[in-house]
């Protein structure tokens, strides 16, 4: 039964991704203007325009081009950039790696910290510590992320001079140097995503605290932290995973502004540049990667939620 449920989730995920890919393709298709004259400029002769269309397969029917694009995307070939005629995969590869590195960096700090603080807040519910954790994390997400970024730059880089304000990374850099260079953007993102996860953890745990089995655990004479960590947390896993997945997705998809502020060579920045240059094929590819990340992470959360339910995992 559980296998069926999980497979169903995967099927739904794949279907969603297909629909999204179609939306992305047709949205770009519907944009006004002719791509060939956009790229070649007003002075292009009809012959060069025709040659360009021929070379880029623009004369084929849209449906055929969609299937062609989709097939290529599945094998990692996103076609050529309109702006400079280089393969998009080559253009994007390093950027994707950079974005995932930064997101992973932030996630490794933010997820355990948020869940830990959420547990603490639930454990000392109603105390000064609880209120401090809740209000401070809430205060941080109330600011726009670029504002948080500038405050951190002002503090740690302009005044204290501890960290660089520009997150410049190059392919040959060592891990230590890379972590150091990207500390401020990572910290910005930690602050942005933490509140949500922490509050959800706290709420999910507090919800359970009134249940008879939690009272039972207390009446066994167990320590309070054990009641919360061993008896409450495993039953709160599904809602917590859901929020963690949403935030991990946000770390990858929603970091455009942070990348721009720190001039970090990630996918977000590429997206912004490509939109400015009207480089539609690159925009398409970036959007597809974002969408796929989002869907895969949510899919994982769903599956973990199913697997963490003992009723489904151990049927009668």
């Amino acid at each position: 039964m559980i296998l069926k449920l999980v497979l169903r989730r995967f099927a739904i995920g794949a279907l969603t991704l297909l629909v999204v890919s179609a939306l992305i393709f047709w949205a770009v298709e519907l944009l006004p203007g002719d791509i060939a004259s956009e790229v070649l400029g007003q002075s292009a002769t009809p012959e060069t325009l025709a040659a360009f269309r021929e070379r880029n397969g623009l004369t084929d029917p849209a449906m055929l081009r969609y299937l062609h694009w989709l097939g290529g995307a599945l094998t990692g070939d996103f076609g050529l950039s309109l702006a400079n005629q280089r393969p998009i995969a080559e253009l994007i590869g390093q950027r994707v790696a950079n974005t995932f590195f930064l997101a992973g960096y932030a996630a490794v700090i933010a997820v355990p910290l948020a869940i830990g603080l959420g547990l603490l807040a639930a454990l000392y519910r109603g105390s000064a510590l609880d209120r401090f954790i809740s209000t401070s994390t809430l205060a941080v997400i109330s600011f726009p992320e670029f504002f948080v970024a500038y405050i951190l730059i002002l503090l740690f880089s302009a005044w204290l001079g501890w960290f660089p304000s520009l997150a410049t990374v190059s392919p040959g850099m060592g891990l230590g140097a890379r972590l150091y260079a990207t500390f401020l953007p990572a910290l910005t993102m930690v602050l942005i995503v933490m509140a949500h996860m922490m509050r959800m953890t706290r709420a999910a745990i507090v919800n359970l605290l009134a249940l008879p089995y939690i009272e039972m655990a207390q009446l066994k004479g167990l320590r309070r932290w054990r009641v919360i960590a061993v008896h409450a947390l495993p039953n709160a896993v599904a809602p917590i995973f859901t929020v963690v997945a949403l935030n991990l997705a946000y770390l990858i998809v929603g970091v455009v502004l942070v990348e721009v502020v720190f001039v970090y060579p990630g996918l977000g920045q590429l997206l912004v540049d490509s939109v400015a240059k009207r480089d539609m094929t690159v925009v398409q590819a970036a959007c597809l990667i974002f969408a796929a990340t989002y869907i895969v992470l949510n899919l994982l959360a769903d599956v973990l939620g199913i697997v963490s339910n003992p009723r489904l995992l151990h049927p009668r």
Partner: protein
Amino acid sequence: MTRLLDIRGLRIEAQSREGRTEIVKGVDLSLNRGEILGLIGESGAGKSTLGLAAMGHVKPGCRITGGSIRFDGLELAGADARLLRQVQGRRIAYVAQSSAAAFNPAWRLIAQYCEGPVQHRLMPRAQAEAEAVSLYREMRLPDPERIGARYPHQVSGGQLQRAMTAMSMSCHPELLIFDEPTTALDVTTQIEVLAAIREVVRRHDAAAIYITHDLAVVAQMADRIKVLLKGREVEEAPTREMLAAPREDYTRSLWAVRNFQPAPRDEPAAPEPILSIVGVSASYGTHPVLRDVSISVPRGRTVAVVGESGSGKSTTARVVMGLLPPTAGQVVFDGQVLDPLSRNRPRTLQRRLQMIHQMADTALNPRHRVREILGRPLEFFLGLRGRKKEDRIRDLLDQIELEPDRFIDRLPGELSGGQKQRLCIARALAAEPELIICDEVTSALDQLVAEGILRLLDRLQREMGLSYLFITHDLATVRSIADEVVVMQNGAVVEQGPKAQMFQPPHHPYTEKLLSSVPEMDPDWLTRLLGQRQMQEKGAA
């Protein structure tokens, strides 16, 4: 010799929206080693609060405002968390009413058993596991070596309750608190659990406080009985003494509940049936739950359907209401064959057939006021509006003996359990039905409150000629209100007939088992019954 537990002048206060209310008002309680004290009273009497207080525990929102709780010389009232941890679970253990809710769904039974002794550093895990198996065996759980590897949802209610009792014994406590451990079980399962609990408590020479609202049950378990009412003690006496000669009126009224008998009606010839269930079979998925069930309800009569949980009683109700289409057979109402699905039935037919559920709590929308709850069926089925509707709502409230002016603007949360069930009855009545299906409508209520509901249903039947299909697992209820009785087991009808005949021998063996499982006031009843059953088993073998 010092007493094991000595509670003096205990006062406990609860904080609610309306302010503070005292729920335990100066109670004394004492208990010697190896002794079992029964605490009895209706809900709101403060018995559970008192039971938890004996462990030094108060529910969130409550606090101890006076008195002392001395356990073996230790003061538990206002004790710090450190001291309480040394006592709770280890020297005083708790057995909760609903074991399904009190076991953590995420862990195996044996892991939850071992947690106490291991965390209290009494023994290594391996020894705890070995002891668990031997206690599981003592509690007569099936397959004691392997049942511990199961998750709570994988064992039945009666087994889970026994596993919880075993778990409470894990640290060899000196005192056990049983908080209505068999209330949620049906009679046949209850017997097994009662017998197992009694034996294990005696064998391990533990003292116990046994909380229940069922006098007959407490009579089997306790050496002494203390009766509570609204946070105060009514009386206390050794079990036999109290059963033979209760001193207080309130105690006597608890006895009287079991004797409710409606006035005999003038017996005309058996009326024609209003509802006939003909050869109905049904299944959930591929799992068959009803097999060739035929029941008929005469107009103006009450047909009681009894059986233990899982016998198909509620499923029968779902088929009649058109919530579960049967795989075979049909339901005939007043000469018309009903469509298998409720949504395909004409509204007039839906109106004439109403249902009242067991859990009044969850059957009422918590955000609707009484006026909306009763007004909705009046509009939907009868098209009443404005003044007429308002008048009818007030009539209905009068009929269920709730004062219209006081209750019409209340939310369900502002009503007691019995009042909520009355409201559910009024909602069913609003549609002006001819047949009402009552699904365990008194099972979640105290005996006194339940009796009030039964009287009300009886009166309404006389006044309006209603017919009831009354589903219950409580034979005392059947004895008091049924005209005809249907006994179900494993999805099939094993016996049916007029009440008088059903309560006279000879019985079908299953009916016999059900009847003999109903606890009696006699304190020797359980011992005698177990002896008889053992003899029969030997005879059979």
